């Protein structure tokens, strides 16, 4: 009889994963910390035309790109003369399951079916769950979605409850848990019990699946405007959205486009805390995921995370919860499209950024998500009020995550805060060497760090010196 205790299952982690993902990550490893990222993406994932075909067959991709003319007009009212870039939005809610996550799931589930898996399991409380469920439904695979849903009183965010409902609507089994990273133990047990595919968010398939999004943006903007976008803003949590989009833009030729990551500022709230859990009005796209995944990408549920934002991200900015609720309202009230608030994190950032850009520039908000009961500003604010959060109009600069939500009085008050890129890169290296007590690395590791952090060699060497790491 298999030992199902926490310790025993965690000790079998590597063999369970290998069987459930079917990728031998070891062949890409080298040195002390490096691995062949591009080699892995090339050998394991699929080409753009192949993925476009897979996605088209599964009701994914080719989503519309809309210019937000009224929002742009409003932005110019709050900009210096000549400033106020044109804002466009990629309407990813048009994908089969209502978000860009369908792109990732389409490739993962195609791959699972091709390799003879009877079902797929994903650990996610986000839109990816219903994306996997929707794709599995189409290919005749079973799906189990393991979700962190409730605090210890069995109270859950309306947004997460809605995502669970949607998974079930597509025929998935939802396994719902209270707060805690030991969700991973339950996840491993289910993989072992069922022999299903680990439809992780972080495999090369799942990341490459987003490349078509960046590719479409480049092509759509080019065909409308005769140039590539100046800036693309991507909401950043686990990193897949930004990484995949950036790779797709580059593959299409849009190599000069500035890539900006945006997260909702939830600093001060602990992600594994039972009491903080329901003090957040955003369950994803926030700094609680974005910052740790940026500085330690391999903390994911596969040995090597294919989402590596520091390779691509030029700037990383935060906005407040109140900003996002405000712009969600703008999108409905003056643009006539009602979309879920979480996906509008990058819209809030784009509005702030557009104010500083010349008016002939183009800034792209690269996703939207579906809306509905629970996944909507009103139930989220109702829930926040019930949890003792103060909600008022005012200047979002007074925002304190977990204490209040301040809805701006006008878009002039929406500004971004820059996270310091240098510090994020320093922390990445600190984590990479510190977690394994590494004191020396190879030349190949050094080359890997240069690419993984988009830094010059001397900059990497300078940081390594701070942590007493020698290059052999």
């Amino acid at each position, binding site marked *: 009889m298999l030992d199902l205790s*926490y310790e025993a299952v965690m000790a079998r982690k590597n063999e369970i994963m290998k069987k459930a993902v079917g990728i031998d990550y070891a062949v890409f490893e080298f040195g002390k910390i490096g691995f062949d990222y591009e080699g892995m993406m090339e050998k394991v994932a699929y080409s753009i035309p192949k993925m476009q075909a897979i996605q088209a067959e599964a009701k994914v991709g080719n989503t519309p790109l809309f210019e937000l003319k*009224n929002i742009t*007009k*409003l932005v110019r*009212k709050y900009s210096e003369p000549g400033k106020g870039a044109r804002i466009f939005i990629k309407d990813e809610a048009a994908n089969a399951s209502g978000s860009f996550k369908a792109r990732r799931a389409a490739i993962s589930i195609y791959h699972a079916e091709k390799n003879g898996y009877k*079902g797929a399991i994903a650990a996610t409380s986000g839109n990816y769950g219903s994306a996997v469920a929707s794709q599995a439904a189409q290919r005749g695979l*079973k*799906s*189990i979605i393991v979700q962190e*849903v*409730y605090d*210890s009183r*069995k109270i859950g965010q*309306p947004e997460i*409850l*809605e995502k*669970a*409902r949607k998974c*079930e609507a597509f*025929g*998935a*089994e*939802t*396994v*719902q*848990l*209270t*707060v*805690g*990273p*030991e969700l991973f*133990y*339950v996840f491993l047990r289910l993989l072992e*019990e*069922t022999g299903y595919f680990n439809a992780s968010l972080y495999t090369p398939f799942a990341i490459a699946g987003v490349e078509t999004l960046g590719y479409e943006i480049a092509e759509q903007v080019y065909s409308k405007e005769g140039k590539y976008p100046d800036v693309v803003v991507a909401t950043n949590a686990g990193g897949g959205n930004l990484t995949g989009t950036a790779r797709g833009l580059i593959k299409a030729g849009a190599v000069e486009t500035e890539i900006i990551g945006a997260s909702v500022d939830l600093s001060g709230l*602990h992600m*594994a*805390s*039972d009491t903080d859990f329901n003090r957040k009005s955003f369950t994803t796209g926030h700094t609680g995921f974005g910052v740790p995944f940026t500085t330690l990408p391999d903390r994911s549920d596969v040995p090597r995370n294919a989402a590596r934002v520091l390779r691509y991200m030029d700037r990383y900015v935060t906005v407040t919860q109140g900003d996002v609720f*405000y712009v969600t*309202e*703008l999108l*409905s*009230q*003056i643009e006539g499209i009602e979309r879920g608030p979480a996906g509008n994190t990058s819209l809030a950032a784009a509005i702030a950024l557009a104010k500083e850009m010349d008016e002939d520039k183009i800034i792209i908000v690269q996703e939207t998500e579906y809306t509905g*009961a*629970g996944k*909507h*500003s*009103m*139930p*989220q*604010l*109702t*829930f926040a009020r019930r949890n003792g959060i103060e*909600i*008022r*109009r005012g200047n979002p600069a007074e925002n304190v995550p977990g204490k209040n939500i301040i*809805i701006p009085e*006008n878009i002039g008050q929406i500004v971004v805060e820059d996270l310091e890129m240098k510090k994020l890169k320093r922390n990445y290296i600190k984590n990479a060497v510190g977690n394994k007590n590494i004191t020396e690395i190879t030349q190949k590791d050094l080359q890997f760090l240069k690419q993984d952090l988009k830094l010059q060699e001397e900059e990497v060497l300078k940081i390594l010196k701070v942590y007493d790491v020698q290059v052999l």
Partner: protein
Amino acid sequence: MELATKNDWVEIENLILSPEERAPQLPEDTKAVPLKMWVKGFLLDEEAKIGDEVSIRTLTDRITKGILVAVKPRHIHDFGEPEPCLLTIGMEVRKELGNL
């Protein structure tokens, strides 16, 4: 007392880790409470009441056991209450646009 009969759509609860068994790196508030799990499926027992240990067949055809906590569980999330801080935004910005 709520009763369920065979093939009813039900929800079961399992205790996965007691507070003593929880991972060491957790914050104190989480470490003080158990890790619980809920799964839904069709009841396999002939009859059961809330609190009984039962078996269910899930949507993926798994058979699993746990304590019966709900019979025909509903999704009860909704569109919330009208939020005063949001209700006037549309009027405000349309006015601003009109004045441009």
